[in-house]
Structures are given as C-alpha cells and as structure tokens.
C-alpha cells in the first residue's frame, strides 16, 4: 500500500532522457541543433524552427517567478494533505521566454513576488521518479 500521491509521470519515446536526468538530479532540455534554442516540454521537432536534430543539454535551473497560484481547494485525493501548495511557472535564465511548470517548495506563499529569483531542487515521487522543483533563492 503506497501513500496517496499525485500521478507519476509516464515517460514516452523521446522523453525518457528528460526523466532519466531528473533521477540523476540534473535538469536537461532539448537544444536544437539548428537554432540552438531550448524547448519545454520535450517535443520531437524544434518548436521554433521545426528542425529535427537536438542534443540534451544541461541547465542550471536558475530562473525567476513568471507567475504562480496557491492551490487551496483539493481536487485530487492526494491534495487534501498538501493544500495549500504552490504551482509556479518559472522563466529560466538560460533563454528568454523559456518557461516550465513546477512547484515552489518550502516557501511562505505570502513571500512570493513576480521576478523573484528561484533555484532548482529535486523532490522524489513515492514511485521513485525525481521531479525538478524550485525554491526561492
């Protein structure tokens, strides 16, 4: 019997390297071989130039708060024990407009500000998969 948990991510063809790197506590994204730009979420072709080639490149995870919500109403059984929790959209320093959804952990929701600096951390889902999350820097 496992504890109530949010769903774990199910990797697909082409996205396993993202989740594998997370398990090694590294944030990687696809960097286009043609235009050199990162994309999130993982996608088969470059979402800027449609080029087919890429490598998985590491990111420091430095970023800033683009927007956030403090979730107070539980819509999932595992949320009952978690509310309030913060879902954040982080704009990563690596590239303008490169944003990802995550959690802001260990923070007072009242202390969050737009453009506040955040730093990468990792949490572990009960099924074992590690997830990239953020803390206020």
């Amino acid at each position, binding site marked *: 019997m496992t504890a109530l*948990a*949010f*769903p*774990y*991510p*199910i*990797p*697909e063809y082409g*996205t396993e390297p993202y989740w594998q790197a997370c398990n090694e506590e590294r944030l990687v994204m696809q960097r286009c071989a043609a235009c050199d730009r990162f994309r*999130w*979420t993982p996608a088969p072709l470059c*979402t800027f130039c449609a080029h087919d080639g890429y490598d998985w490149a590491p990111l420091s995870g430095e970023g800033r708060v*683009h*927007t*956030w*919500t*403090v*979730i*107070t*109403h539980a*819509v*999932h*059984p*595992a*949320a009952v024990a*978690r509310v309030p*929790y913060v*879902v954040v*959209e982080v704009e990563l320093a690596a590239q303008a*407009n490169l*944003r*990802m*959804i*995550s*959690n802001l952990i260990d923070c007072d*929701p009242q202390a969050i500000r*737009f453009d506040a600096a955040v730093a990468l951390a990792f949490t572990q*889902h009960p*099924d074992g*998969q590690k*997830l990239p*999350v953020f803390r206020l820097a």
Partner: protein
Amino acid sequence: MDSISDRACIVGIGHTEYSRDSGRSELKLACEAIGAAIADAGLTPADIDGITKYTMDNNDPIDIARNLGMPELRFFAELNYGGGGGPVGTIQLAAMAVATGQAKAVVAFRAMNERSGRGTPRFGQAATAPGAAGAASYLSPYGLFSPAQMVALAARRHMHLYGTESRHFGEIAVTCRHHANMNPDAMMHGRPMSLADHEASRMIADPLRLLDCCLETDGGAAVVVTRADVARDLRHPRVFISGAGLGAGHWNHRFMVRDIDAPDSESTVIARHVFRDAGITHADIDVLFIYDHFTPLVLMAIEDFGFCKRGEGKDFVSNGRLRWPDGELPMNTSGGNLSEGYMHGMQNVIEAVRQLRGEARCQVKDARHAFVSAGNGVPTSAMILRNEK
C-alpha cells in the same frame, strides 16, 4: 464566394432543464434537447440528415438517429477542445455542410451528466489514475490538474501586467448572476450575488475564487441549422450565421496554461476573420455572448476579440456596461455558464438566437447582431449572428 457568410441559419433551439442530477441517461438528455430543437424549427426528425458533436460528448450520432427516428445521416462530424471547439465550431461545421449541399438540416448538440458524474466525469475533479502521460505528465505530478488551477496562473499574470483586480473578475460573475435572476430556468435563479459576495467567496486557486468558476451541470442543449433559403419557409424569423471561425496558435499547449505575454491568442486569430466575413465592426454588436468558464478568461476574451485593448478589460467590464437593461453591451443575458447552467457554451448560443428572434427575457431592444464565443484558453471558435432587421 469565399466564406459561409449568411448562407446558413439557426432555425431551431431546444434544451432540457439544467440540474445537479438529471436522473436520466446522457442519451436521453441528448434526444430530449435535439427533439425540442427540431420541433422548435417546425421540422421532424426525419428531416434531419446531419449531426455535429463535441468530440468529448459521450453520445454517438447513430444512437441519436436510431432513437429519434432519423432514417439517413449524410453528414456527421465532431470538433475537439471541449468548450473551445464545441459550442460554436460544431455550428460552423453544420453551416458548412448545409451551405455546400452535404446535408439539408444538421443538428449540433451538447448533452452530459457532468455534475452528477453519471456518464461524464466532473471537470472540476482530477482523474485518479496513478500515472500521467503526454502533456499531463509535466503538470499532474505537481498537483496542477483542473482548468481553474491553470487559469489562475494566467489570471495572476494579467493582474500583474495590467493592474486587473479580483473585483473586476467579480463584475463578470455578478453580471451573469444578475441575468440568471431574471431567468427562472437558470440554476442560480433566486440566488442573488453582490460584489461583496464574490470577494468573500473562498479561494480555489489564488487568485481564483469559487464565484469566478462556472457551474457544473447535467442537461442537454441543441440547435438546428439549415441553408438560408430553406430557413425562409420555417417557423421563426431567420437567424443568419454571418461569420464563424476557429482559432489556435503556438500559445495553445499544455492544456490551459496560457502564454498571455504573447501578442496574439486564439481569440485574436478569429477576430481578424470573423468581423470581415460578417462585414461589420465591433460597434455593430448589440449583445455579447462570451464563453464564461472562468471570469479572468472572459475579461481576456473581451480584450483579445477586440472589444477593447489589452489591459483595458478591467474598465470595460466595470460600471454595469455588460448588464441588462441599462448597460451598453449586455453580456450572457440568460446567465451563462456561470449562473444559468454549464452546457459547455451551448446555452449561450440558444440565448443569442432568442435575442435575435426578439423573445429573450432580458431582451436587448432592436438587437440585430450578436457575437458568440466559445471558450478561450484552448483552441476556440466564435461567430457573429444576425437577424433580418
């Protein structure tokens, strides 16, 4: 001829009661609503040869045809993206079918037990599968599940960029409730709401409050579409589909997580075409139907469909502008998704037709043009309807 402008009409409207528990199957609701719309048009089920549906509607067109007695279907199609493609896009499909001779009379409908959960899972609750695949695999592990939670991210960003406040979202909720209180068929009839009530309602996903969110509803709603010349001989004054369009772009991804910093949206894509096709401007619109899933998205839709500039929505929705009878542009005059019933936008289409027939409870005097949108935040659809005045 490069558009369907004025080549098709909505000739029949019908719906069931809107409730928290219908007590009957989704197929029964669909048949009741569609049967009512066909009767309203003065047609019989045997006259209907096409059905368009929301992709996510559980009802199968051939079940409907078998139960209602439609002997032959020549056209059936569906449109995706829930309340984005559904309430207007299905009607656009119907209009294209009749305008091009692919069918004579087409029904577009939505029927669901979304509140009781008897058939359709409640949209405000998360699926409880242990794992998430595809786009959800990047959201659900963080506890981001419901449309309300996703919209909250964009709402906060809009507040930051433009100085929009919760009370501006409240204006939209209060407007729809005001109209619902003049509509005895509305789920929230008899339950008035003030701005103070809105501001006192509990947070769901800060900054979204409970009263920023639409209802959840069991029910069915349907319309019948024919070619304009066929419509001339039917029961009601003709309501023309003067322009209709779909819109999407690169900002539509990750469900309803919006990039509201992008200069365009699904709504701006449509606005560029639909007014041109109808040959009118925003100033010609007499009554407004903006899909009201969540109040912040209503405000953003008003801006991006071009009724005001970005950032001006907060002033546009204030001072009673959207409220019948005194506001200059009454919106969602039967209560909308927020307060009449959540028929995934189809209830707004039905009310738009009533307005243009001159039979609405909150009748806008001399209404000639109605703008009707589907849900933004996802790929969406919108149309302009007009009568013969």
